[in-house]
């Protein structure tokens, strides 16, 4: 009976994300600016609640702090949702899929003369009567779907990639774009709200008893809050406006920066419905996409129970690979041994193996960090 610590799939995911809470939380690599964002929002709101709200609640209306609290909760929820969720990461291709794509590319390119540079790996697809070029990602070994892009900071391909936002510490992509937008929108409202009521507070105090010297930090806090809000306003409100514009045109920041649909060469945005309402609905009201990264799935290293993928099941009966069989019969998977995924191409794909070489051996979900081992075993199966 082997008792082992359960390994979850997030531990073996390639890419440079950080995971917390046993895979429930997924963030980008650099979190420093995210902590700054948290500090600024929580700090400013705390000052507001502590020093402005008591005065305003008494002299104006108790609804003011209540609404501020609701807005603050909404802002924090949207920020955390944006930062902690999977932006729409596309998992890297497993070995067979990568080989299959390589084969297709070679078939399409024909024979390249020695010394000549091979043509760029691009696939043309027609989307709504527009030709869109799909680029090949050398890291993920896939042709990127339309609107996907590779984030160099997170080292992942992200679907409907918008941008990598250091303020939220994560990429903004298909799955979390609406949370990001709602975050900027609600933060704009919160900033305007706090700014307005700070001014109101100062004005009110001016017309009250001037000699009523409130011995506290209140005047200083107000000034601080006003400063923070003033600078935040310009950036956040501007950003919200920019993203509202993008949503109405159904574009991403990435496409806007690259000028993909700027109209030159008569290329129009094939994803736009040419109707602002429809575009907004598609971006904000479309169904919540599930994550295709099974972060909390359990990695089955012993092959007694069949997984839903055929990999482990098929490989238990590999007759031509004696090394793998002895490994499977002895229960614990020795870290340097190859996984079933690496064993497969050596068998039936004899004709497809011409393109794969040891240097391309980068197993996407390695239980063995040693990439040389699979290559060595592959050769032995010839």
């Amino acid at each position, binding site marked *: 009976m082997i008792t082992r610590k359960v390994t979850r799939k997030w531990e073996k995911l390639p890419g440079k994300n950080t995971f917390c809470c046993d895979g429930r939380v997924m963030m980008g690599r650099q979190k420093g600016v995210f902590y700054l964002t948290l500090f600024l929002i929580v700090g400013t709101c705390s000052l507001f609640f502590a020093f402005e709200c008591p005065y305003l609640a008494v002299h104006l209306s108790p609804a003011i702090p209540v609404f501020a609290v609701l807005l603050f909760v909404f802002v924090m929820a949207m920020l955390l949702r944006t930062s902690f969720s999977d932006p729409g990461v596309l998992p890297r291709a497993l070995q067979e899929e990568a080989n299959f794509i390589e084969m297709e590319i070679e078939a399409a390119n024909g024979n390249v003369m020695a010394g000549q540079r091979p043509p760029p790996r691009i696939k043309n697809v027609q989307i709504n009567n527009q030709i869109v070029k799909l680029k090949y990602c050398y890291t993920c070994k896939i042709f990127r779907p339309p609107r996907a892009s590779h984030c160099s900071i997170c080292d992942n391909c992200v679907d409907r990639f918008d941008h990598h936002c250091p303020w939220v510490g994560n990429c903004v992509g298909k799955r979390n774009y609406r949370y990001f937008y709602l975050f900027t929108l609600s933060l704009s409202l919160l900033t305007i709200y706090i700014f307005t009521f700070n001014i109101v507070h100062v004005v009110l105090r001016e017309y009250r008893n001037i000699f009523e010297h409130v011995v506290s930090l209140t005047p200083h806090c107000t000034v601080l809050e006003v400063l923070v809000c003033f600078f935040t306003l310009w950036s956040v409100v501007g950003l919200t406006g920019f993203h509202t514009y993008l949503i109405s045109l159904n574009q991403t920041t990435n496409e806007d920066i690259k000028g993909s649909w700027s109209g030159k060469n008569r290329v129009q945005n094939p994803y736009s419905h040419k109707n602002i309402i429809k575009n907004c609905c598609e971006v904000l009201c479309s169904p919540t996409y599930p994550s295709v990264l099974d972060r909390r799935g359990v990695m089955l290293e012993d092959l007694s129970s069949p997984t*839903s993928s055929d990999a482990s099941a098929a490989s238990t*009966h590999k007759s031509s690979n004696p090394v793998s069989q002895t490994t499977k019969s002895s229960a614990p998977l020795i870290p340097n041994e190859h996984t079933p995924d690496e064993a497969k191409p050596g068998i039936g794909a004899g004709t497809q193996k011409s393109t794969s070489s040891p240097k391309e051996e980068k197993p996407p979900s390695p239980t063995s960090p040693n990439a040389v081992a699979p290559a060595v075993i592959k050769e032995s199966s010839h």
Partner: protein
Amino acid sequence: MSSAPRTATERTKLPYCHESFHNLQELRHSASLANKVFIQRDYTDGTICKFQTKFPSELDSRIERTLFEDTVKMLNNYYAEAEKIGGQSYIEGCLACLTVYLVFLCIETRYEKVLKKISRYIQEQNEKVYAPRGLLITDPIERGMRVIEISVYEDRGSSGSSSGSSTTSSSGR
């Protein structure tokens, strides 16, 4: 193209298969993986999840074209249903927004419900149609919704030449 002896009734029911596997269990235990075929996404209608219904030549001798196309079309219908932007998705979106998305801790999103249906459908198709023909479909969600992976098995008892010929024909595509 003779395979290990099987029941005559199995053979008569399945004109295309030269190796007849009784069920998924048998497939897993007595077959070896010969090849994998990948059905790519069809982007002609945009970024919605849709797979190409073009029949791959590697499966020519393994399964009837209509069966394959029906499976893919059914999957495409399921995905279209999941991604439909309409009344239900608006209500779900607004409700979720108002509850600060905490509602998803309690209820399942529509997409997740449809994904479960898809998973059941694929399981059923594997059991009834594909495993008897020595094929196995992998749920696209396990491949990042990029491809439908169809694994082609061959009976260990039968000669490897039949699968060998199918793999060589694929490289000449």
